[in-house]
């Protein structure tokens, strides 16, 4: 890349970051809650929840986008309410793109977090309870920090997925410059035009750099939290 970034490219990057950060902020607490339920509770409908969470992974992204459109479109059951009551419209808006990113990232985040929660030793939680910890405090002080590796892994996976999300986004919120044209949609646009290989490559490299930034950050956080136990044999 010899030339500095054009202002159009900056706009796309800013939008992609905004959409993905919002998507992860939206998905993370939901993913943690679901992961915790699946890891720690046996309840009727558990398997159904497990299955539903995986749907955005199983279905082709365009189908997920279509389902989002049916549900959150202005004529859909949820979208209608949002529109009438709050005046929020998700289709054709970056909020909708963030929702699509969140939904697509969810199964990846749930799995990673769940793995880490399942690895937390129940004996430690019992020890916390003998020391007077409520279920909530035991969760906040033991389960949550000990599942940090899963949270970080899930966040990296989810962020990367949402930076790369194309099919569900274009189907749900279309492809409007400055509003829903994230990096993958801009790449799609460029791919439609002959002789744009350099433009495609530039945009692809930008996607990669954004995600690698997140990756680097997470590796650093993991290493920081590991520091003390480096010498245990």
């Amino acid at each position, binding site marked *: 890349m010899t030339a500095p970034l054009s202002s159009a490219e900056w706009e796309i990057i800013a939008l992609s970051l905004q959409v993905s950060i919002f998507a992860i902020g939206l998905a993370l607490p939901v993913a943690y809650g679901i992961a915790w339920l699946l890891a720690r509770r046996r309840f009727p409908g558990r398997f159904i929840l497990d299955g539903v969470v995986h749907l955005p992974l199983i279905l082709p992204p365009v189908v997920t986008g279509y389902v989002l*459109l049916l549900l959150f479109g202005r004529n*859909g059951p949820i*979208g209608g309410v949002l529109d009438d009551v709050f005046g929020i419209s998700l289709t054709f808006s970056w909020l909708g793109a963030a929702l699509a990113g969140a939904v697509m990232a969810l199964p990846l985040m749930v799995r990673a977090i769940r793995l880490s929660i399942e690895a937390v030793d129940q004996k430690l939680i019992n020890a916390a309870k003998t020391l007077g910890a409520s279920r909530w405090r035991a969760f906040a002080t033991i389960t949550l920090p000990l599942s940090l590796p899963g949270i970080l892994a899930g966040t990296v996976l989810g962020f990367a997925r949402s930076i790369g999300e194309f099919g569900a986004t274009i*189907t749900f919120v*279309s*492809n409007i410059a400055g509003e829903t044209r994230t990096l993958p949609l801009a790449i799609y*646009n460029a*791919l439609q035009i002959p002789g744009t290989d350099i433009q495609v490559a530039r945009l692809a490299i930008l996607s990669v750099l954004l995600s690698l930034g997140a990756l680097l950050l997470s590796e650093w956080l993991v290493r920081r939290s590991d520091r003390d136990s480096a010498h245990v044999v």
Partner: protein
Amino acid sequence: VPTEPRGPLVLAASSLQQPLEELAEQWTAAGNDPPQFSFASSAALARQIENGSAGDIFISADRQWTDYLTKAGNIAPSEVVAIAGNTLVVAAPAGPTPPSLQTLAQANRIVTGDTQAVPLGRYAKEALTAANLWDSTEPKIINAASARGALVKLARGEVDAGILYTSDAQGVETIAATPIPRESHSPIVYMAVKLPASAHPDTDGFLGFIASPEAVKVFDRYGFIRP
């Protein structure tokens, strides 16, 4: 945040991206607010319109979706404007002999749009059928996801021959192309529809502009023809 004034929202098939963006520049240069575009597949756009997403103009290369929307939205046929047309070519990696429907019949792999789902493929099927070649070529057809996908596979030499839009094939150095008679398939027409939900004051103006003689010149430069 102060928002810039915006022109009408145009939901358009991706294949029209280049001429439409050039037309938009001319339109804006003439003192109008810049129109907003969303380029995606005709199916994706039609479903967004059907599910209540706002928009002013729909431009499609796919007759089926235009018909579907006009029927579902009670749009009078008079609201549908043909803005451009296209033709087909037989294409092959550049070589000594120019491709033809006959050399195509000898190819091992023939790429075109999906013959069920992608308009290019449906037109290609009609043309092959008319030339009595459908039964022999069908097993060799590679269904690409879009006209653009078919072009890429041919340009990279992954296949021996293909049927493409003239607008896509023109100017690609690595391939040679021969026109296919227009009569051998249904006319290829791009249609613009003013959507019932449209409230933008410039909608009619922009529709008129992209159907105007000046617009034809632009479409022509990208290999499209008069509708």
